[in-house]
Every structure is written in structure tokens, then in C-alpha cells.
């Protein structure tokens, strides 16, 4: 029984690996696997302008196809990654980059999460420190006697 469960769990996990990353089949053939690697990487890092939450690799839009073609042709023509990215930015703006460059107007984007994390950690540290240092006044003998009475009424045991 347990074994069956484990098996189905493993099967489910394996199924989850079948992502649609290779859903788009195209006839771009490269003579050099390194070029193909670059093509994959570039089309994953460039945004499709039509369906904005997809990259060129995922998108089936006409424009994405054209731009993939363009990337392909430029790689075949021996252009560097830098040149290809610059080409796209010159036409569509930095918006095409899924990984925006670090500049004055993107500092918040890059640094913000870390700043928030630091603020959170600092807050936590202050909170913990305060709790620790908050002096607990010991109970007076009368209070202790009352506590014991209350606990006994409920059938509980006074804790040490």
C-alpha cells in the first residue's frame, strides 16, 4: 500500500517535469551546438512584445516567430550576444529584456528585495531582543498561592 503510494508520488513528480519548454518546434538547425545553446538562451531572455508575459521561446505569436528568426539569422551571421540584444533594445526598448540592466531607474528593482529583507531581519532582531530583555517580574507569594488554587480547581498541576 505504502509502496504504491510512493510509486504514484514519484510518477506525479516525474510528470511535473514535463514542462512545455519545448512545446514550440521549429526547423532552426545549427551546425554548432554552442550556437544552438546561445539561440536557446537568447530566446528565453527576450520578451515577446505581443504576449508580454512570455519570452520569445515560449510564444507562438507571429512577431515572436519573426524575432526568433531574426535571432537565428544574426547568430548564423556571426553576431555576438551583445550585438543581438542591442539590436532588439534599439527597436523595442529595454522592455524586451527579461533581465533588465542595472541602471539608475532600475536600482529599486534590483536592490529593493534585499533592502526589504534587511529591514525585515532588523525588525525581527529588535523584536527578539526586546522580548528577551523584557524583565518578567517574579510573582509575589500571594499571587503564587492564588495561581496554585486556580490550577487545582481545574484539576491541573502547577508548573514549575
Amino acid at each position, binding site marked *: 500500500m505504502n509502496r504504491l503510494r510512493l510509486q504514484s508520488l514519484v510518477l506525479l513528480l516525474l510528470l511535473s517535469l514535463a514542462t512545455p519548454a519545448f512545446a514550440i518546434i521549429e526547423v532552426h538547425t545549427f551546425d554548432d551546438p554552442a550556437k544552438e545553446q546561445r539561440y536557446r538562451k537568447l530566446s528565453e531572455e527576450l520578451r515577446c*512584445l*505581443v504576449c*508580454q508575459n512570455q519570452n520569445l521561446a515560449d510564444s507562438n505569436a*507571429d*512577431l515572436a516567430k*519573426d*524575432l526568433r528568426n*531574426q535571432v537565428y539569422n544574426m547568430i548564423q551571421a556571426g553576431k555576438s550576444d551583445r550585438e543581438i540584444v542591442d539590436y532588439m*533594445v*534599439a*527597436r*523595442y*526598448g*529595454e*522592455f524586451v529584456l527579461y533581465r533588465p540592466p542595472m541602471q539608475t531607474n532600475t536600482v529599486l528593482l534590483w536592490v529593493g528585495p534585499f533592502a526589504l529583507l534587511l529591514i525585515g531581519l532588523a525588525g525581527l532582531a529588535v523584536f527578539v531582543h526586546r522580548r528577551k530583555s523584557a524583565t518578567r517580574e517574579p510573582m509575589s507569594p500571594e499571587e503564587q498561592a492564588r495561581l496554585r488554587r486556580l490550577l487545582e480547581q481545574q484539576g491541573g498541576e502547577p508548573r514549575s
Partner: protein
Amino acid sequence: MSEKKKASMARYLIPLFIFIVLVGFFAIGLNRDPRLVPSPLVNKPAPEFSTVSLEQPDRMLDPQLFRQHKVSLFNVWASWCVSCRQEHPFLLEVAKSGRVPIYGLNYKDQREDALNWLGALGNPYTASVYDHEGRVGIDWGVYGVPETFVVDGKGIIRHKHVGPVGPQVWREELLPLIEQIENEAG
């Protein structure tokens, strides 16, 4: 108010303050149209092309076209584009008024379809560039047809409007700029 009370007040006010700031961000962010991507081509020279005309397949068109006028519109259209149909009557009106010449970029279309479309609905374009492959479109950063560029007499792109042009866009966006460019040119 005691110090302690003040401190506990602050404790409740901080989340409220953060909440208000967030609401502010969302109010601005959610009211923006994410489809509008600022074009890096604005205030840059019109990208080069040398492409055949839609109507006269033996005539080549290039950005020198724009230098013949103080200001002109360059409208990206296609027969398969639904919103182009929507803006078409207005473009015809503008063309008829003779206020500004409109050039067309017939984007990723079939010549026959495009000519039929113009034949049936009327032709507002002084001339249309026949960009069958979409190469000119890529150079001009076209991503959503229809798009309308305002190009001045020096061949500089001054503005890009994404989406159909109607009376409101004309009145508030295009006409003031057209007048401004005409005044600059003197």
C-alpha cells in the same frame, strides 16, 4: 498621552501607512496600460528601408518620403488587422481634409488582400510601403498593429501611437504635435 501609548499607536499606524503607500502604487500601476511600451525610436531618425510600394510594385519607397513634408503620419496597417478597420474611416477623413499626408506601412500582408481592402474601404494613404516579410516592421519596432508614427520634415520620429487613431487621439495627441512641428519648421 503616555510614551507607551504613543508607541502602541505607532505600532498600529505603521501597517496602515504601508497599506496606504501600497494602494497608491497599485492605483497608479493598475491604471496604466501595460501594452503601451515606450518606443526607443522617438526623437531618433526614421529607420532606413528601401521597399517596394504596395500599389506600384516597380517603385521603391524609402524614408526620403518624409522629407517632402513638414510633418507626415506613418500608419502601420494590414488587411488582417481588425482595429485597422476600426480606425480606417477616421484616417480617410484626415486624408480628405488634407491636414497631413498619411503614408502606410502595409505590414505582413498579401498584396492582393491589401489592394482589395483599400479598394473596398477607400485609400487614405499617399503611398503604402509593402512590407510583406515584416522586416521594416521589426526595424520600426512595430509590435501591435495599428501603430501610427509622427515623422517630421527632417525625418525624425517624433511620436508613436499604438492602437487605433480616433477623434480623441487626433485632438489630444496628434494634432497638437503636428501644429508644434509645423511651427518649428516655420
